């Protein structure tokens, strides 16, 4: 059972890392808009914008 003395602190460490990552994500605004980024995955990769008709106006 001595392995627990290693594994339990490791799990706590991982917990700490997970919480840190979550705090980082919230602070960086990753959760501000949950709808728009979801659309990106539905769209093919960006093509180069077609050269025709650059709108001057």
């Amino acid at each position: 059972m001595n392995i627990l003395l290693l594994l339990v602190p490791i799990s706590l460490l991982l917990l700490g890392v997970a919480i840190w990552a979550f705090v980082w994500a919230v602070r960086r605004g990753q959760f501000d808009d949950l709808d728009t980024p979801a659309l990106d995955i539905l769209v093919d990769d960006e093509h180069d914008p077609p050269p025709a008709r650059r709108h001057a106006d």
Partner: protein
Amino acid sequence: MAARVSDMDALLHDARRPTPATCYHCGEAAVTGVQRVVGQSTHAFCCEGCAAAAQWIADADLGDYYRLRSQNANRVDPAALDLGAWDRDDLLDGHARVVDGGREITLLADGMRCAACAWLIDRALTRQAGVLEASANAVTGRIRLAWDPAKTSLSRALRCLVALGYRPYLATGTAQEDRRRRERNRWLLRVGVAGLGAMQAMMFAEALYLDTTHQMPLPTRDFLRWMTFLVATPVVFYSGWPFLSGAWHELRQRRPGMDTLIAGSTLLAYLASLVETVRGGPHVWYDAAVMFVFLLLVARLFEQRARGIASAQVDALARARPTLATRECDDGRRESIALSALGVGDIACVAAGEIVPADGVLLDAPARFEEALLTGESQPIGKAPGDSILAGTVCRDTPVRMRVTETGAATRLSQLTALVERAQSHRPRLALLADRVASRFVVGLLLIAAATWLGWHWMQPARAFEVTLALLVVSCPCALSLSVPAALAAAHGALARIGVLSVQPDALERLARATDVVFDKTGTLSNGRPTVADVDTFDGFDGDLAWRIAAALERDSGHPLASAFAARVGTAACSASDVKTIAGAGVRGRVDGNKWYLGHARFATGGDDDDDGIWLGDGTRAMARFELRETPRADAAATVAALHALGLRQHLCSGDAPAPVARLAAHVGISEASARQTPESKLAVVRDLQHHGRIVAMVGDGINDAPVLAGADVSIAVGAGAALAQRAADFVLTGDALLRIPEAIALARRTQRVIKQNLGWAIAYNLLAVPLAVAGLVTPWIAALGMAVSSLTVTANALRLTRTAP
């Protein structure tokens, strides 16, 4: 007729997909017949503006927008908007931050209706030369735009936004928005910490539970217990802080409620576990404490989110404020000043097309104002000198001077904003009811708990503590308190998705109980754009000439009918001089040397044929009479049929003349129609229905219906601007589709059913669990499990509402 019916069927099935008769871009009726090849196929458009926007989107290879969107776009106004003000240094200095390589500004855009809009704006802006970064948020309607002033100007970047149908406004309430975001982030952090912590604590707890035969060495057991304590502590005190402070608040007011019970149970489980850990007792209950905090936090987060969606829309009102005002100095010089510098008594100048900066009194000359945002009335309203004009309205046609009477928070617009916000901060009445029930429940429960403890202490002192704890945990009415907010949150979310915004907090319940629907005709069932159907002439007067004269008179009046006349006549119109509009009567002017009057019968002909036609005459004799007709909205008949299927009686109350009202009623299928109704008589109709025990839902569209909307049991306003300004309205249709009304009613009824099921379940659970717990048959961990299962059951039941299928 057959074509119309099939259109309605299509609309009934999917109102978002453009049918041949509707504009490909904005979904409005495409009556003008603009046809364009966009992408691979030809589409119909309602106007040049929409066609240009669709063309632009196709050219920019962003056609995916039409596939992704869940709501129709805004109608694009083809008229160019003067964006010059956005390049002014005083505006940029005040609102644009300097960032690396350029400046950054936060804007609000109206018409951002779904995530696809934000996606489109993102892409469209980012592709502009000189734009460094652009990100749009569909929830708040905000756009963050960073650009390089050396390469492009702000107005050029914004022009693309305008061409797509989104009007930019300066984000005024940034401090408030920041506060809201920080608050939301704090909740997210609490939930995240609670979730991760609860997961970890459950793992340790599981190890302890699985040791059923007590073979685990005591040091290992204590080690695991201390670890659980370590993980549970931040969950209870950081994540659970809202409950702890809420309980403190409730206790100080001597009104124990939900929070007292939640905090009490959590703290009891936590502290009892700590005591057991220290003295090496047989049980710990950290897991119960952390799961409890986590589940309840998630429920609260859902509830807040539902109300947050509505509050984002309040910003539409804040948007109406202009950022700069023009003040006339004593010496007649004009200066441009910040809005906040404008004071009461100042003379302000408003250019045509600009927004009135403050409430005030019109000076000099009559002018017309568009009050759509405040009243929902899309037609401009004529005002004479001395009339009061309101901040947020748009000045049309002519520049005006005004004397400021109210500024800032004292304006009608600000008051309306405050009203909407106040309504939103209310807690729903049903939730309050659950709270009241819970409060009594708490007191009763504490008494039972005390009695249980005494009883067990007397009979079997060793188990007294454990049984009492189990009782408190098992009976915690969290299913009871979750049942209503979870259902309401799910229902509000589903409503918002179909484009119905709930403004008043407890309206859903009343909507579910509605038995009668009263329509106000103008702009509700019809599309508000009358057309001239026919002309009758008198004394052998030439019909074509009547058309030409009318077109000439109307041409410069800016009247909504002008385009109807012009379309009929084309280029063959006569020319008119000395044209003068008489408010509430008609137009007068000189055509080919003769004086003509066009308007109401009394005005144009001197007679008193009071009907809804437009008369052409020379002031004494009638020459021609034009028949006006309002086109019903495309989905009006389908809506009436759907409401009928829901068992609702429908009435039509209109201020118009009997003939057109009867025609419209027959067309859409409403049997009870009354015409020539004043707001008072409409209210009397509603009162009469209520007197007979009916519950009336009123569908209206403007401030002229305010008494009726307020008098009805539940009111639905059509058109976003109208309803937000309309403090009496309970619901707002954000889109134009009337079919949302029957959908919303059906959803409201389902919500009531779910709430009843949830309350029934929660009460039944407690009735069963409490006696068992008092009898000592429930151990604390079974109690925690039962509590969690019952909470999850009510939440899952509520989530059924988010599925939009009936």
